[in-house]
């Protein structure tokens, strides 16, 4: 953040996302009303299911866990001026790798097996991201295109692996065997333990960006590549490092989903978690701590999508639409301008060539 001499309390970072959500809900409400359903009823169901009971909140936090991490995976790259749309592919790579580690190693104690499986997830998530990072750093290929292509490649590859070499024997579904009990992440205080991991990662990244040289390097390159280069920061190293970190975090998101919720790798699960990460990151203004409330909100909406269909008769895809609208309004500068005179968004476009 550029230091201004007169420090005023800047309400923009809070008001813009909240106002975006309200406007998005209003537009979404109009779409629901077109289908002759009372939007207030739909929203009441949506929010009471997500936040109205202890069970509801526990489910919401479980849904929020991978979203916090995939949001971080996008946010950390945004800070470096990279738009990592590949969180989805990295997450799937992590989910599959951790499932493999979860069912292949038999007889390990819990304290070794769980971290090992998480590490597998992080490693393969980072590996997928590294392809995009290296192509960006050494060949100047725009990361938006490569990460989108890698998403599709990883999805196909994972489907192949889960349907042929890693397939659970003797049954028709495309999925891997169940993970060993020793790899299963237990709940803590009725909440999924993964949630605490995700929050810890958020806090760590917040600290990293604020208090370390590495964080400063990432931030500098993200704000002004040329200035960073002039100051002797290796742009290539920053690009690769932030993609690796982002990929590893997305991989852990997939691993936690496998090890605590799904219990195996099944392609139909995990769908969309990485894409929601984009919305989470932008809603949280690419701030590692801001990502947490954004993920909880979106997790709550995801958690109650099917109840909304059941009780209000709205297609569960309403959540997709609302998220798209939120993303639109949170990034549309018209809203931002209402609260902030100086445009202070993350700028990413630099053509395809650098």
């Amino acid at each position: 953040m550029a230091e201004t001499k007169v420090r005023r309390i800047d309400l923009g970072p809070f008001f813009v996302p909240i106002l975006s959500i309200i406007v998005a809900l209003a537009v979404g409400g109009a779409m629901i009303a077109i289908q002759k359903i009372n939007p207030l009823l739909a929203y009441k169901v949506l929010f009471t299911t997500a936040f109205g009971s202890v069970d509801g909140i526990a489910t919401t936090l479980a849904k929020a866990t991978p979203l916090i991490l995939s949001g971080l995976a996008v946010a950390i790259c945004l800070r470096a001026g990279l738009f990592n749309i590949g969180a989805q592919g990295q997450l799937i790579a992590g989910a599959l790798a951790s499932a493999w580690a979860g069912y292949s190693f038999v007889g390990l104690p819990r304290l070794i097996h769980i971290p090992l499986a998480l590490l597998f997830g992080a490693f393969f998530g980072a590996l997928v991201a590294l392809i995009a990072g290296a192509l960006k750093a050494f060949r100047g290929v725009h990361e938006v295109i490569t990460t989108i292509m890698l998403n599709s490649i990883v999805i196909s590859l994972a489907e192949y692996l889960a349907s042929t070499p890693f397939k659970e024997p003797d049954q028709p579904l495309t999925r891997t065997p169940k993970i060993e009990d020793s790899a299963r992440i237990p709940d803590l205080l009725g909440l999924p333990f993964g949630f605490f991991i995700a929050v810890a990662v958020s806090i760590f990244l917040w600290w990293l960006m604020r208090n370390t040289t590495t964080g400063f390097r990432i931030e500098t390159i993200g704000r002004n590549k040329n200035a960073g280069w002039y100051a002797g920061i290796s742009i290539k190293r920053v690009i690769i490092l932030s993609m690796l970190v982002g990929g590893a975090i997305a991989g852990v998101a997939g691993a936690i989903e496998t090890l605590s919720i799904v219990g195996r790798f099944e392609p139909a699960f995990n769908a969309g978690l990485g894409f929601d990460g984009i919305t989470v990151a932008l809603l949280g203004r690419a701030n590692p701590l801001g990502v947490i409330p954004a993920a909880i909100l979106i997790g709550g909406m995801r958690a109650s999508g099917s109840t909304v269909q059941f009780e209000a008769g709205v297609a569960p895809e309403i959540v997709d639409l609302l998220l798209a609208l939120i993303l639109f309004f949170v990034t549309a500068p018209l809203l931002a301008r209402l609260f902030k005179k100086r445009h202070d968004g993350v700028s990413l476009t630099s053509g395809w060539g650098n």
Partner: protein
Amino acid sequence: MKIRISYVITLAFIALFTYFYRQDGAIATSVVYTAIQFALPLALAAMVGVMCERTGIVNIGIEGTMLLSAFTAFFVGAILKDTIKGLIAGVLTGVIVGLLLALMAVSWKMDQIIAGVIINILAAGLTSFLYRQNYSIPSTLSPIDLPIIGTWPIIGPILSFHGPITYFGIVFIIGLWIALYRTPWGLRSRAVGEHPSSADTAGVSVTKLRYLNVTIAGAIGGLAGAYLSLEAVGIFERGFTAGKGFTALAIMIFGRWNPMGAFAAALFFGLAQAVTNQLMIDEVVKIPPQFINMLPYVLTIIILALSAGKVRPPAAEGIPYEKEKT
């Protein structure tokens, strides 16, 4: 050097085609026919990119434009029981999305990558929310049997009997190529993409031209979407465009932001897919279907990795134009 490569590819293609034509004429021509069908939506989508980027606007929302247009084209066609009305709806949808992109990128001076991603996510959200099963269009756009050419050997079965959007698309691509390099509009567009302040000094309205080109490009994106749902298959599914809008960007870069270059690149892509399909049908090779699905994406990455750095995008691409204040 580039010219030599394209000569080599063309010669290799003719040699291979002659070889296979001698083996089985019907299959050889049908593979090339299929290749054109695979290539057309990619080529049209690449034209969207060419038109936008030549005037300095990065458009990664092509995928969303196509998805939304394919959706409206299909459902308007199905509900009104009129495929032509569907086609019009698809093109109009493209125009609206184009205007939205222009609004975000030109007027609001938003980051163009984010603007494109928003279009893609909005399109995915809208189409999956509004999608309904059990709808069908009365008929797909019917193929046209070309007079005279249709009876020629080899060329007839390859070029004849495509749908109307295909023929329009080919004519449009050639027209765009001529217009871009041989008309005042083309010169102005390229000037705005390379050096907007000079163009402005010369009296070209950067804002107007960018709006115009992005909107026309939107219409073409709409046509590409309508091609998929009305001409190619006659159905619509969630996530129907399957990354074609992104592959189109790679094709645009591979074709060096030149309409004919991009068309050639799209044909190469189409041919790669058509040949793989044929090999699968003949069971010459046994490849898991997932790897076939991966092929266009892998090709896209390889092409980008090989051509990036060697090709030069329009200089003012991605930068919102700020008029100097006096």
